[in-house]
């Protein structure tokens, strides 16, 4: 039976395996005939949405990994607005509202409230948390 998954990622892209594991899991979901409702980044996981992410060429690019999955599977990837803003990850809309000089959220990522996660988890068959 095809299932719908909601994915929660809370691990930092710098100090945990959470993003790498979650990306492999999402890819495997689709290979198995399942689908993913959306991915929600919370806590330090939101750092992955920073458009100014610029790792060395020989290092894993986790942001690019999420962008590729979003494009390949028409996958929605959400970052929590409150934890993102306090970490300096700011959308154009939020930057304008707050009078900030610039914004830096990668266009493939959505800035969303916790309500988006509640909706995702309540409309999915399984919830998986990568921390």
């Amino acid at each position, binding site marked *: 039976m095809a*299932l719908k998954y909601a994915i929660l990622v809370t691990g930092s892209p710098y100090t945990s395996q959470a993003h790498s594991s979650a990306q492999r899991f999402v890819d495997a*979901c689709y290979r198995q005939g399942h689908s993913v409702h959306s991915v929600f980044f919370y806590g330090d996981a939101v750092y992955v949405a920073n458009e100014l992410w610029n790792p060395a060429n020989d290092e894993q690019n986790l942001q690019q990994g999420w962008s590729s999955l979003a494009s390949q599977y028409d996958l929605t990837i959400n970052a929590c607005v409150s934890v993102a803003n306090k970490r300096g990850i700011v959308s154009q809309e939020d930057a304008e509202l707050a009078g900030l000089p610039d914004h830096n959220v990668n266009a493939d990522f959505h800035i969303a409230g916790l309500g988006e996660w509640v909706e995702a988890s309540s409309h999915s068959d399984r919830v998986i948390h990568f*921390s």
Partner: protein
Amino acid sequence: MSCLHIVNRPISEEQLETLVASMSSNDSLLLIEDGCYLIKNNVLAPKLKAAKVLKIDATVRGISDTSSIDWVPDYDAFVALTAEFTKTLTWTFH
């Protein structure tokens, strides 16, 4: 109702006992990421005989010589395993 408990980091004996005490008879424990190191812990390994281990994560950590382990070979098998349980719970022990 059944739950797949997931551990992705080294935990203490006390934390493992808390986790195991919360498991019902239909539940299982899966070790991923740095949680794989637990099966090489001489104190905790005897309490993890029923645990499943994500082999692809264990192998990159040099853990491959434990034949008695219930291996989950890769992420395809990881996904298939989550489909067998009605829910999952990742223990973070913050």
